[in-house]
């Protein structure tokens, strides 16, 4: 009886944990797969993107020029409507005393008719009829206006002199978390600050353009019509590309507009979640569920066979086969159900933590929809039927005499049980290997010499609302005598990925004496090299004493010089010949990795400018307490900028953030593998108890025949050890192969150390033996007289 309670507890506990993890993983996968699925016309909705094939190689961007929308609408009859969606940086919204940074989407008046964002107050079709009309999300409206009616109120957007006034015309339901289009407020394209310039500029790409095709038209047909469309609107760019790439014949291969159905937008584009990761999460969930179900089936079956005698008796008493079946199935059903409910409860408790940790937007309610319900019921029936029904059927077909004599216990259902156990340990070992190696690779990337100081450099995103040059000048002024600040500079783009999540990269290609060079163009300011502690190899750093330094002076990296093929680069001019000036190289620095450290260092050209926007301010600090300096800088920043949002981070954090996806995946895999091995051991724990019970008599006989405690422990341990070894033999080559493929993605990568597998093997074996030892040792020291007395 006590044994049965222990078994039930193990069943339920294991199932609950597995179900909760599984639910979290599947909901996460579902969250990503369900992106943008709420638009009712989704088969007709497409996002356009540009595909260019220049000297630097192919490039894809979903950033489009403003005039494209109108052109698409008029030139292609199948296009019912085309709409600009411009998602910018957060802007400053103010009303009376209230003041906050929010994302304003600029779009066309039919926005609320094309997309499904329910309008709560006001009328969707007329909400954006005025050029200065604005619709607010529910949360934003609440935040600004509280409980008073926002309709008709006048809202101020911008700071200082650049302020525009808008009239609130509607309140919209907050956009769902699984929406690619995210906004706090929606206004007209015409209200963009530089609309007049952009309106007819096919060369500035800053907005998404969505099209809605008419109901019965084929997307392929529309795509075909986009070829002449490109010829018509991009003549200059095509000519340029043709000159760049004489090897490419078809103009559609040089520049094309592609359509992405709105369902796939989330998985395509520059900063998208790869679908593979979603499938990885799903397989992880499936693995965990599989392990738990194997446990369940194994334990339940073993338990049922143990009770064969009792059931045999029942059969003589006239219990029908059906009744026997129902009894065993019913028990399995009940255990499973309780486990599932506990798992569901646990999952709903964990969801907030999970969302906070992994930045998801999952909700338990997503579970209660037909597909999920069908899957859950299916798994439920399958597992309980195998776990409860299989032994029942098997018992029902055994000869009655056999059951009564207890013959069944001698024919142990070993093959199925062992293969389930082997699969569990193989999956667990596989997951452990994967997370271990992924962890090694990430650690390795962290240690890759990056070529510049990253620990003591703070990067502050200036933000859309501020003038970076002014702030940089004021900061220099304020902090010039601060002993904790070594130097200050400004840049056009961040290094790594900062708290503003923005990565801007501009690559420029040119010819230099028959050599094709393509390089990252980096806008910087004075003291850039000093701030990042990059040494000068040849020539000099930028210097305010030379007036031309802000016009055409360049500091370039070694690989840049190598690509030029110029032995003596200092003072040489490159590119821009048509301007008559060209760019002059004043200094050469060692290579460094401006973007992802997992890639090879790319040639870099650094230049100054008097007018281009400074988007980031870098400060090199010198202190034992960088956190304190950070706080000090924050205070200075707030004073200088009139309380603009301070989103500073250290450069090494930015570089870390580059691997956010990998770090999250590795964390998830580590947790999952810990749970997998835990569940497997839970199964092994109960299984070893079962096996030992079946072998009690044998152990007794062997002891009477002279076997020592060590002999017995060894004998049973070896039985399980063999199974674990088989699973390792399955898992290790798989893990090795999979991880070889994975690390191929990284330019800087570890070589997989076979000792890792030895380590994993040892860990798994030790854990398994430890688990088994609880029961083996107890069984081995039992006095054989007691185990043989049963007659």
């Amino acid at each position: 009886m006590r044994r049965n309670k222990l078994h039930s507890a193990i069943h339920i506990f294991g199932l609950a944990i597995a179900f909760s993890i599984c639910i979290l993983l599947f909901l996460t996968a579902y969250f990503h797969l369900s992106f943008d699925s709420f638009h009712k016309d989704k088969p007709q909705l497409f996002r356009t993107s540009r595909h260019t094939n220049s000297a630097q190689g192919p490039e894809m961007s979903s950033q489009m020029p403003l005039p494209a929308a109108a052109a698409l609408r008029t030139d292609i009859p199948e296009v019912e409507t085309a709409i600009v969606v411009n998602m910018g940086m957060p802007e400053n919204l103010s009303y009376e005393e209230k003041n906050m940074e929010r994302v304003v989407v600029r779009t066309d008046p039919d926005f609320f008719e094309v997309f499904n964002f329910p309008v709560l107050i006001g009328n969707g079709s007329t909400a954006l009829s005025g050029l200065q009309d604005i619709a607010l999300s529910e949360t934003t409206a609440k935040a600004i206006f509280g409980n008073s009616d926002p309709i008709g109120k006048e809202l101020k957007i911008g700071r200082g002199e650049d302020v525009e006034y808008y009239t609130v015309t509607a309140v919209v339901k907050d956009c769902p978390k699984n929406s690619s289009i995210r906004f706090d407020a929606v206004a007209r394209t015409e209200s963009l600050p530089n609309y007049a310039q952009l309106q007819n500029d096919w060369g500035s790409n800053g907005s998404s353009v969505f099209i809605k095709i008419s109901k019965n038209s084929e997307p392929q047909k529309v795509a075909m019509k986009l070829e002449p469309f490109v010829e018509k609107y991009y003549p200059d760019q095509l000519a340029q590309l043709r000159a760049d790439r004489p090897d490419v014949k078809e103009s559609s291969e040089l520049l094309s507009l592609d359509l992405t159905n709105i369902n796939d937008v989330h998985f395509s584009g520059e900063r998208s979640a790869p679908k593979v990761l979603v499938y990885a999460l799903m397989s992880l969930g499936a693995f965990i569920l599989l392990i738990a179900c194997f446990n369940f089936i194994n334990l339940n079956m073993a338990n049922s066979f143990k009770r064969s005698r009792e059931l045999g008796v029942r059969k003589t008493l006239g219990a029908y086969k059906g009744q026997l079946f129902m009894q065993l199935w019913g028990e399995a059903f009940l255990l499973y159900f309780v486990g599932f409910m506990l798992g569901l409860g646990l999952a709903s408790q964990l969801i907030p933590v999970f969302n906070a940790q992994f930045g998801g937007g999952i909700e338990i309610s997503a579970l209660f929809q037909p597909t999920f319900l069908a899957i859950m019921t299916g798994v439920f029936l399958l597992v309980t039927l195998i776990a409860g029904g299989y032994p029942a059927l098997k018992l029902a077909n055994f000869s009655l005499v056999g059951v009564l004599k207890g013959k069944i216990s001698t024919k142990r259902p070993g093959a199925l049980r062992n293969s389930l156990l082997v699969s569990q340990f193989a999956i667990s070992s596989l997951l452990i290997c994967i997370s271990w190696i992924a962890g090694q690779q990430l650690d390795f990337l962290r240690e890759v010499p990056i070529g510049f100081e990253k620990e003591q450099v703070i990067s502050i995103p200036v933000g859309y609302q501020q003038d970076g040059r002014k702030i940089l000048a004021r900061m220099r002024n304020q902090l010039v005598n601060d002993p904790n600040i070594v130097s200050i500079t400004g840049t056009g783009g961040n290094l790594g990925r900062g708290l503003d999540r923005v990565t801007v990269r501009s690559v420029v290609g040119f010819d230099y004496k028959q050599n094709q060079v393509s390089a990252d163009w980096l806008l910087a300011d004075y003291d850039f090299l000093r701030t990042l502690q990059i040494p000068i190899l040849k020539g000099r750093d930028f210097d305010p004493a030379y007036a031309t330094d802000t016009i055409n002076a360049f500091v370039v990296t070694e690989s840049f010089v190598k690509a030029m093929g110029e032995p003596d680069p200092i003072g040489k001019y490159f590119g821009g010949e048509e301007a008559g000036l060209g760019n002059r190289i004043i200094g050469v620095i060692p290579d460094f990795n401006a973007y992802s450290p997992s890639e090879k260092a790319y040639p870099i050209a650094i230049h100054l400018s008097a007018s281009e926007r400074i988007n980031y301010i870098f400060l090199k600090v010198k202190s034992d307490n960088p956190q304190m300096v950070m706080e000090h800088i924050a205070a200075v920043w707030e004073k200088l900028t009139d309380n603009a949002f301070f989103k500073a981070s250290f450069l090494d954090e930015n570089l870390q953030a580059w691997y956010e996806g990998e770090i999250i995946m590795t964390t998830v895999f580590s947790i999952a593998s810990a749970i997998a091995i835990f569940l497997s051991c839970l199964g092994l724990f109960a299984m070893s108890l079962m096996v030992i019970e079946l072998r009690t008599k044998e152990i007794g006989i062997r002891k009477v025949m002279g076997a020592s405690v060590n002999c017995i422990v060894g004998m049973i341990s070896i039985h399980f050890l063999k199974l674990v070894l088989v699973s390792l033999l399955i898992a290790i080559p798989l893990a090795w192969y999979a991880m070889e493929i994975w690390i191929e993605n990284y330019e800087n990568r570890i070589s997989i150390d076979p000792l890792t597998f030895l380590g994993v093997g040892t860990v798994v074996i030790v854990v398994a033996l430890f688990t088994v030892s609880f029961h083996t040792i107890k069984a081995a020291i039992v006095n054989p007289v007691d185990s043989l007395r049963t007659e």
Partner: protein
Amino acid sequence: MLLQLKNVFKWVNSGGQRVFLLKDINLTVEEGEFISVMGPSGSGKSTLLNVIGMLDSFDEGEYRFLDEPVHTLKEKHRANLYKQYIGFVFQSYHLLDDLTVQENLEMPLLYKKVGSSERKSLVADTLDRFNIVGKKDLFPAQLSGGQQQLVGVARALISSPKLVLADEPTGNLNSKQGEEIMELFKQLNNEGVTIIQVTHSEKNATYGSRIINLLDGRKI
């Protein structure tokens, strides 16, 4: 003298009460004796046999086996002693179902750390001696009860013990099979093996040279 029990008591505590399983047992066994232990069910026969076989401990008294004071010996030493000198035969044979006859015979030798070649020859000799060469590759389930007990006796004797302890060896056999086993014991005893058997059958008891009667753990 092979073994001697002096004032041996064995008890268990049940509900705060001492329940005696063996009470003041005095017994001396000489080498070459054939003793039958009799008594009603629950009188302590098996317990006595287990104490003699060193499988079970006792709470009071002395036990000397071949002049070794068993009651003071360390577990390991005691195990070596019974491994070397004592063989067991059980009512329900206690053969391992998963092993063949040959493997069942070999098993005790493994735990006595007998070398492989010696094991082979001992097993072959024993199979020969008990006339079961033809059955060596069969599993216990493929044998009749009498044949299984024959294997059980063969297993007990394979490492030439001085003492064989048999707890109702014929209890599961029909009378003809039982008789054969008793004849076998008789023959072994003639070859010098000391035998202590538990039996309910007066007839089987007569094979022995001496009868011990137990009642409620006490010798009468």
